[in-house]
């Protein structure tokens, strides 16, 4: 039953069914929540909830299985692409995705993600880049920007001794096995809409058996960045987007044909 007068009002937006009714443990303003919401909205719109299996990683999104209202499993640190590979090969009719942070995927799990992409596994990977290890107290990640202060680089990341950040989307796009690799951002309404569209495209790619898809999502971590959510959004726009340009890095020709 609608709790509004359908004769005089239209429902513009409501919480998606693919989210449980639990309140998240995320810090106020954390855009992990936006990513969760978009994935849930797309699965609802595609009517895939009953046929989806998510694979959570280790990081602030470790409890994703509490918030998504469909089958979920939680992988050892960095190993979500390997687990998703096994699930998808055994249950090829399911939509299988991993949800991983930059620490999980680009540090300890770098081997797994590179080989899953190289094998062209028919899975979808959501890669939340917030330039640090959020869960453990904001340590430096492979994605931490040059000069960025973190709890383990208090004087700012020094590329001479700590190396350069890794642009994961650009790197995976070079692999022949990868079909759809893009970077989007969760900072403003327009970019959030584009992120949602990319999530839809990635699931369409998987449905058609077109192979490996990965969406990098630029995300904020107000708590460890030591800023309000609103200033964190500005920091993402001013510092992250120039270093991590938004765009499509790999779109297999068959994907360009997809209409939805």
């Amino acid at each position, binding site marked *: 039953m609608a709790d509004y007068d359908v004769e*005089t009002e239209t429902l*513009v937006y409501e919480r998606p069914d693919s989210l449980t009714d639990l309140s998240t443990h995320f810090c106020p303003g954390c855009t992990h929540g936006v990513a969760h919401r978009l994935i849930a909205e797309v699965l609802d719109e595609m009517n895939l909830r009953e046929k989806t299996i998510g694979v959570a990683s280790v990081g602030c999104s470790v409890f994703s299985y509490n918030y998504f209202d469909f089958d979920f499993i939680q992988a050892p640190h960095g190993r979500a692409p390997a687990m998703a590979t096994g699930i998808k090969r055994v249950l090829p009719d399911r939509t299988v995705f991993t949800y991983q942070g930059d620490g999980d995927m680009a540090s300890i799990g770098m081997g797994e993600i590179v080989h899953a992409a190289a094998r062209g596994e028919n899975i979808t990977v959501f890669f939340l880049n917030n330039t640090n290890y959020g869960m453990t107290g904001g340590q430096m990640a492979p994605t931490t920007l040059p000069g960025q202060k973190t709890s383990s680089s208090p004087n700012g990341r020094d590329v001479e001794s700590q190396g350069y950040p890794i642009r994961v989307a650009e790197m995976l796009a070079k692999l022949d096995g990868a079909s759809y690799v893009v970077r989007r951002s969760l900072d403003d309404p327009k970019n959030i809409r584009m992120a949602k569209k990319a999530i839809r495209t990635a699931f369409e790619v998987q449905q058609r058996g077109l192979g490996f898809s990965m969406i990098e999502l630029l995300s904020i971590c107000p708590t460890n960045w030591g800023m309000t959510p609103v200033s964190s959004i500005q920091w993402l726009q001013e510092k992250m987007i120039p270093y991590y340009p938004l765009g499509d890095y790999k779109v297999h020709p068959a994907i360009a044909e997809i209409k939805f």
Partner: protein
Amino acid sequence: MPPKGRIKVTEIYCKGCELCVSACPQNVLGLANDHITVKGYHPATLIAEGCTGCGICSIVCPEAAITVYREKTVTNRIPV
């Protein structure tokens, strides 16, 4: 006449992050400073007339806390 709308904030989810407040194109959102949620946050609320039901606040909300409604105009009001 701009369309008329309204929002409902489900307070158990809202964490007072103000992302919706800063994104609302009509500047009609603010935090309710007169009470706190069970988690201890001042929740978002409409503070002025002029909501158009555009849905932008719901697009930026990390907690899926906002439901958005838009009034039907006489022309698009179909009998149900």
